[in-house]
């Protein structure tokens, strides 16, 4: 079997040595915050203050308070700071700054998304003029088809992001209610809980109702595609919001699907123009395209750093930031550029100074599959507890090609293909769909490139595209001498696998197969199953 050289942190961690003491089984939140030494604790404190400010500003608006008491999922946002605490366990120095820089921006973005939803929501803000310029899209939507619309004139509302996706990160139990509703109405419990929960939210009438139109797509899976029909029915028939289904080919590596995909993008743009009354602007598009390329270059650079013995930006925060930037932003918001560069500067500094997340890196790991929403701190736990460093995760292995960014007649045609390519290569589906090569071969190539000796396979039990290749992963890993560690979960339903049940799968593998003792034994069992 492949082995990698152990890397030992030459610097003793400042502050307390183990983050295990911040957990208390009697509480649903942490007992206290981590002591990270004076400098890093103060930094963490100032970031906490910033989040208090962001949330305080949000709450000061009366319509947001009204929205808070209307929507059950808003309860999750009581626990934003608790959510942040999940991302920062054991972190110091650049790692802490990278995490805060990225997540503070993501949280501000989600907060703005909620505020936008409430502003246009017929039940809350009911700002009709605003709502008429809003386009609702799915949570798993690449918004490339909005890249040429001025963000001041047309507003893209990823309605499901704050409602379901982000809310589950902050509050592990909050989605269960919607899953129960969906199952009560007849959806079986074996489908992916994410579209199932979204269908449940629609049935429960717990989505904000706004927008001149909605664009749905089939980017993730059969379940997501099918759930859209349920949501669109209510949007169209009850609320009179027309929906467009943006069909995105699955076999995205085949050149013979490109024209179809590009035509679908053209149609989606025409649909938005028709319903918002705003026109597509090529200047706006190519400015956004430049930003997409810039973000791509930054991401490639981050991955380069991660291929060294001193990876800097990884784990759930890396993938959540990419989710937000690559998928939810797609170059439309200029603010991301500065953040991208700041993150890269921090990572480069961390690399130069050989900063490490834990006292030892024993294994270099590629994380494949889909991470569970409610154990979002898992990868940070893994590096702290076992010294297994997650160099890259499947959700962050996305497009690395540059798209056309100069406004020429040829490039305007190319732009439709670029948008289609990005849309087809959405996060996750660029590996889970498109044939087995993008799922299997890409993984082994990545292991080679990143010099990884272990693959942590998230086995999201309802993700048929992944579990359908279970045996092949096993066999091909064996052939290549790569350890493969299966970790089952059910994405956002903690009743199926609790947090500790998920961690125990790693504990068992490391002890029985790898025959190792944990770096921090106090972290092997954490009493947070009942915590939000």
């Amino acid at each position, binding site marked *: 079997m492949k082995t990698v050289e152990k890397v030992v942190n030459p610097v003793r961690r400042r502050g307390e040595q183990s983050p295990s003491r911040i957990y208390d089984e009697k509480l649903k939140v942490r007992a206290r915050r981590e002591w990270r030494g004076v400098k890093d604790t103060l930094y963490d404190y100032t970031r906490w203050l910033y989040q208090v400010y962001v949330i305080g500003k949000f709450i000061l608006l009366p319509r947001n308070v009204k929205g808070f008491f209307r929507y059950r999922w808003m309860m999750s946002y009581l626990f934003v700071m608790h959510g942040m605490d999940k991302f920062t366990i054991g972190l110091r120095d650049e790692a802490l700054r990278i995490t805060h820089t990225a997540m503070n921006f993501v949280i501000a973005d989600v907060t703005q998304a909620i505020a936008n939803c409430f502003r246009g929501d017929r039940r809350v803000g009911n700002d009709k003029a605003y709502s008429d310029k809003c386009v609702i899209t799915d949570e798993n939507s690449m918004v490339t088809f909005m890249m040429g619309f001025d963000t001041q004139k047309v507003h893209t509302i990823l309605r499901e992001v704050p409602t379901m996706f982000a809310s589950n990160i902050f509050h592990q139990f909050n989605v269960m209610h919607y899953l129960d509703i969906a199952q009560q109405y007849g959806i079986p419990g074996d489908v992916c809980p994410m579209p199932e929960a979204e269908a449940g939210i629609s049935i429960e009438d717990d989505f904000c109702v706004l927008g001149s139109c909605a664009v749905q797509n089939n980017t993730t899976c059969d379940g997501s595609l099918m759930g859209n029909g*349920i949501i669109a029915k209510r949007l169209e028939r009850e609320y009179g919001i027309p929906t467009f289904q943006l069909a995105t080919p699955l076999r995205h590596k085949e050149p013979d699907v490109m024209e179809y995909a590009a035509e679908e993008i053209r149609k989606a743009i025409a649909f938005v123009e028709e319903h918002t009354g705003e026109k597509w602007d090529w200047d706006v598009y190519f400015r956004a395209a430049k930003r997409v390329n810039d973000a791509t270059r930054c991401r490639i650079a981050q991955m380069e750093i991660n291929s060294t013995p001193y990876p800097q930006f990884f784990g759930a925060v890396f993938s959540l930031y990419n989710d937000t930037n690559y998928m939810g932003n797609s170059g439309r918001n200029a603010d991301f550029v500065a953040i991208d560069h700041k993150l890269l500067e921090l990572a480069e500094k961390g690399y130069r100074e050989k900063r490490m997340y834990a006292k030892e890196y024993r294994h270099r790991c590629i994380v494949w599959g889909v991470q569970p929403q409610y154990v979002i701190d898992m990868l940070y736990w893994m590096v702290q507890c076992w010294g297994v460093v997650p160099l890259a995760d499947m959700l962050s292995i996305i497009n690395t090609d540059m798209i056309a960014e100069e406004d020429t007649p040829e490039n305007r045609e190319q732009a439709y293909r670029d948008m289609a390519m990005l849309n087809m290569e959405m996060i996750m589906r660029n590996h889970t769909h498109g044939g087995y090569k993008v799922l299997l071969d890409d993984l082994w190539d990545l292991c080679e490139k990143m010099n990884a000796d272990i693959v942590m396979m998230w086995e999201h039990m309802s993700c048929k595209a992944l579990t359908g290749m279970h045996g092949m992963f096993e066999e091909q890993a064996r052939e290549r001498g790569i350890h493969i560690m299966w970790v089952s979960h059910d994405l956002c339903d903690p009743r199926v696998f609790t947090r500790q049940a998920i961690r125990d799968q790693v504990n068992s593998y490391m002890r029985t197969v790898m025959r190792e003792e944990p770096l921090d034994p106090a972290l092997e069992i954490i009493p947070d199953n009942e915590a*939000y």
Partner: protein
Amino acid sequence: MKKISALALKILLGIVLGALGFFVVTFIIYFFNLDMKATSMLAPFLEKWFDKMDRKQYL
């Protein structure tokens, strides 16, 4: 002049004390996670509120 200096000093002292007070209070809240502990006490009441709310459940 002295009066002005004294006033300025008082204001400065006030600001410093205020800032210090702000820091001490908020840092205690931060470090002992009192913010999240308070909200976690609030959550069960909110859940009841949402459970009681009439919904137009419909497919």
